[in-house]
Every structure is written in C-alpha cells, then in structure tokens.
C-alpha cells in the first residue's frame, strides 16, 4: 500500500510514552489479541485533556488514521506498547519533526506504524479532524481541505521493513533467519 488517507490527530512536542500509553495499562500483553484491543482503547489517554480524545470513551478504535506531532515524538520508555497501541486503535502513521530513537525503532520493528519525519512544523499548521493523504512513494502529506502538499523525508529502508510486516518478516526475506 502506498497511500494512507484519513483524519489527522494533532499533538505537540515531546509526546512521551507515558502520554501515549500510561503505565497502569502495561499489565496488558500486546501478543494477547483481546489485550491488544484494550491497549488500543487507551491509546494517547495520557495526553492533557485539551488535545481531545484519540479514542472516544467506550470505543476501541480511533477515528484518526494519521498522528501529527512536533519534536521528539515518543520519548521516554522502551515500551513497545506505545507504537502497538496506536496501531491497534487504527493509527497507521505518525508524522513528526523528530522522533525519539526507541519509539522510531519499535514502530519499524513491529511493522505497526510509519514514522515519517517532516521538515516543516505541521503540528502548528494542521488541525485535528482535517482529512489528509500520506503518499509513501512520493513522501508527501496532502491536506485535502486546501490541496496543500507538504514534503516529508524519505524513511529509506525502514519503509520496506514496515511494508514487509516488521523485523521478523524482513529478516526472513533477507535470509537472516529461517523461513
């Protein structure tokens, strides 16, 4: 798949892993399907209230497909629950000015989320609820309301790992581990 489209959810700088998935929910194990769904229902529930809800109360899926962040998205813990809960809720990509290292890596290794870097500070330009289209071939984000096209950075090989389904599938196709 080369195009991801849907509603965007806009946050600011230094969105840490405690805001993405508060520690009280780390008793849920992502490899157990029912608990994965629950993790999704709590995605971004640690955010301050002014951002609004990524997942509505009583729901397990989010109406938002693309998250727009500022600098240092995903800082803090190595909890893989963070990218996984965003993916479980229906998130497909995070577009941010920069990412914290472990979150970036976990997004790729799990194949859950496309972490895309934007040179422009989109979190100040876009609004939660806007419709947008993320083109993974051209590395662009298009705001449907205005038709504006924002260039993103090419994630290079990371894109292939995610598209292949994550680290294990990638390692198999590369002959690094047995099929």
């Amino acid at each position: 798949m080369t195009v991801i489209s849907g509603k965007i959810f806009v946050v600011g700088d230094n969105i840490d892993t405690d805001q993405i998935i508060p520690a009280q929910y780390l008793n849920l194990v992502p490899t157990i399907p029912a608990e994965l769904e629950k993790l999704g229902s709590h995605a971004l529930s640690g955010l301050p209230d002014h951002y609004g809800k990524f997942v509505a109360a009583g729901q397990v899926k989010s109406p938002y497909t693309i998250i727009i962040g500022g600098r240092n998205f995903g800082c803090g813990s190595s909890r893989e629950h963070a990218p996984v809960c965003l993916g479980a809720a229906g998130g497909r990509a995070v577009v941010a000015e920069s990412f914290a290292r472990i979150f970036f890596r976990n997004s790729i290794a799990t194949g859950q989320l496309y972490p895309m870097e934007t040179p422009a500070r989109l979190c100040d330009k876009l609004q939660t609820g806007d419709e947008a289209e993320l083109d993974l071939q051209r590395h662009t984000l298009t705001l449907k309301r205005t038709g504006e096209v924002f260039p993103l950075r090419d994630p290079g090989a990371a894109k292939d790992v995610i598209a292949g389904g994550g680290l294990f599938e990638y390692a198999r196709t590369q002959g690094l581990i047995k099929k």
Partner: protein
Amino acid sequence: MAMTITEKILAKAAGLKSVSAGDNVWVQADILMTHDVCGPGTIGIFHREFGRDAKVCDRERIVLTPDHYIFTKDEKCLRNIDACREFAREQQLPYFYDPGTESYSGVCHLTLPQRGHCRPGEVMFGTDSHTCTHGAFGEFATGIGNTDAAFVMGTGRLLIKVPASQKFVIDGVLPRGVMAKDIILRIIGDIGVEGANYQAMEFSGSTINALSMEERMTICNMAIEAGAKNGIIAADAQTLAYVRQRSTKPFSCLESDPDATYAAVHHYQAETLEPVVALPHSPDHKATAAACGDRKIDRAYIGSCTGGKTEDFVAAAQVLDGRQVAVPTFLVPATTEVEADLDRVMVNGRPLNAIFKAAGCLPPAPPSCAACLGGPVDTFGRCNQSEVCISTTNRNFIGRMGSKTAAVILASPMTVAASALTGHITDPREFLK
C-alpha cells in the same frame, strides 16, 4: 582508524576491525535483560516467530528480572510474573530472580550489576529504556522493544546503527551537597531532552573518575532523558574491583582513542555545579534548588533504579539525621541488597532505618520500581490525586507517577531529603553547614 569507546565495543561485537558512526552492523549480544512488563510480550513474540518448542539461543545470556508490578493485587500483573516464571522453567534459565522467593532481587538496573551481569567491553540489550545505566561499567547498553528483544532471544544478534558520540568532560572536586544527579540534571537541562537523540553520551574527567560506581550509574541511567542511545564511562580500577567481586567471566576493557571523532565536546568544572531540580513536566526543566524555595511540595519519594541505591539512602540520611520531615516521605530500596543495607549501613553511628524512622518517614516498601512509573492504582507511593512530589526518580512527564494532575520534581537524594524537611524545594546545603 581512531574510534570512540562505543565504536570499539560495537566493532568488536560485530567482528569488525572498525566501525564509524552511522554504520549499520549486526552485533552479538552478551546479555539480554527483560522484566515483567515487557517479558510476557517478548516471550509471546519469541514463541510466535521461532515456534512453541523453540529454545533461547543461549541461556547464559538471558536475565529475567520481574521488578515493575510486584506488590499489587492486580491479577494481570500477577499473571505476567507467572508468565515469566513459566518461561524461566521451560527454558531452564539460570538467571531468574523470582518474586516471593529467596532469589528475588528487585529493580533490574541494580540487580544486573549486583548479581554480576555487567562487564566492561560487552553489549547489553534490555527491554527497558534505562538499560543505558550499565554504560557505567564501560559497556554498550541500550533499551529495545519486545520485537527486537524476541529477535535477540532467538538469534543472539541485533542489527543496530552505530551512534555518533558526544563527550562530557567534568573536572574538579564536587562541592559538598552536590551529587551525580545534579551533574546529569544540569547536562540534560543544558542540551535538552533530545540533545543527544540517537547518540552516545560519553562521560569522563577527574570528577567522573572520583565518583563511586553507584553514582556513575545515576549519570548513565539518565542518558535516555536526553534521547541518547547509550551513556558510557570507560572502566577503571574501581570498575574492575566492583565487577571482579561479582563476576568470574573474562572481559576486556576498551577506551576511546585520544583522536576519536565527537559530534560535540562539553566541559564542566565541578566546583561551579550546584544542587538542581527538574521542574514539571520535563527532565530538562532545570532550575537551581536555591532558586525554587517558593515551590511547595506535598510528598517526597526516594527510590528507583537511579535514586534507590544504598548510597542514595546514605545521602538522604545525612540530611535527615536528627530532624523531622514535614511531608509524607516514601522510601523504596531498589533491591533486596539495598533493603538489607538499610539495617546494616550506619550514618553517624546509627542504622539508616533508625534515622528514617526517627525522622518520621513512612516505613520502607519492599524493593521494586513502585511509584516511579505510577503503576497499578494500589502501588506504594503512587500519586493518585494532584500531589506535588519531589523525587529521586528519572522522569517527571505528565502522569508519570500516577495521576495526570500530579506534578513531579526530580532531584538528588540530598535535595529530596532537604525538601522533605521543609515542605518546599530546598538546597540541601542549608542542612550541611
């Protein structure tokens, strides 16, 4: 080719003569650590990808340390400990520190060195971002997620990018009342929470050399709070003495070449450093403790991998001895060894526990991560309302210690103790005159 210590360790682990910052290399892991919060997920991926009957690639390299959610009635948390226990049994893991038994230790990042799993020159991965703590032993240590950890469990290897390094040189003698926590909070405040993103933070200089191993751990522990991949301090005689007391395995000490390339070099003079705090809600919101005297606190917390070691309690006791706390003061020793030290280590001729009791602190909780990261609602010391907590822990993100409306202030054990005595942020030197 000149290399940093981080590059040398990764080159060795990759079987290469040399590597440079930016290279992607497959490295052999010497130790993989996981715990009760990320262990069950890691084990789930390991079984899914390698098969239900798969065996870990090397039992000697795996350390399983339940420590996060231990003393709780939460059924899922207890089930997760059971999942770790079952995996340890199935795989016959020799290094499983089982809650509720004699072998239980507590917080992984103090368990690893105390139980002999840290050695210079090695590569350690852990499913915990504070795995960078172990750079204090002259090794490469970094936090990874469950998927990467499951891969290491099965193959012993991981593909990683060699980080560029920033060097922090600290020279001189620290003033009384200024601790390792003050050094690292100052540095994070100066470079910001992504000031070392994707990079190594290498610490050196006469001040660092004079620090104990526990104080060096406090510094490397918080490298992640500046976004770093790893923190590292080259091994010296003190490192060797600590490691050889606890491990019989061979290892090799590596150090940076004098002409190695750095992304940046920072110099600090120890005599100019002061007790500092990180105000809510970011570890880089630095201010001197002396300048924050008008900030009231509701509680004080001494614990965690970065602030619950024996020396942290000794430092707090030096300030608390003979005085009375003004706010509820929570004590959580990181490991069972620290817990035992609270009864056997003396300050001014009295055991630490006697000093804390006389000062009016709450009785210490059993060792675990406890309220450092909030945890289940029945966690000891958790901020369940809008408390302002001054804490020796490492993160003060919104909601970190429980409620979203609580606020956390990070500080050294001495500053936390001094603030507990007055009920507001206090420079500990007021009590050390």
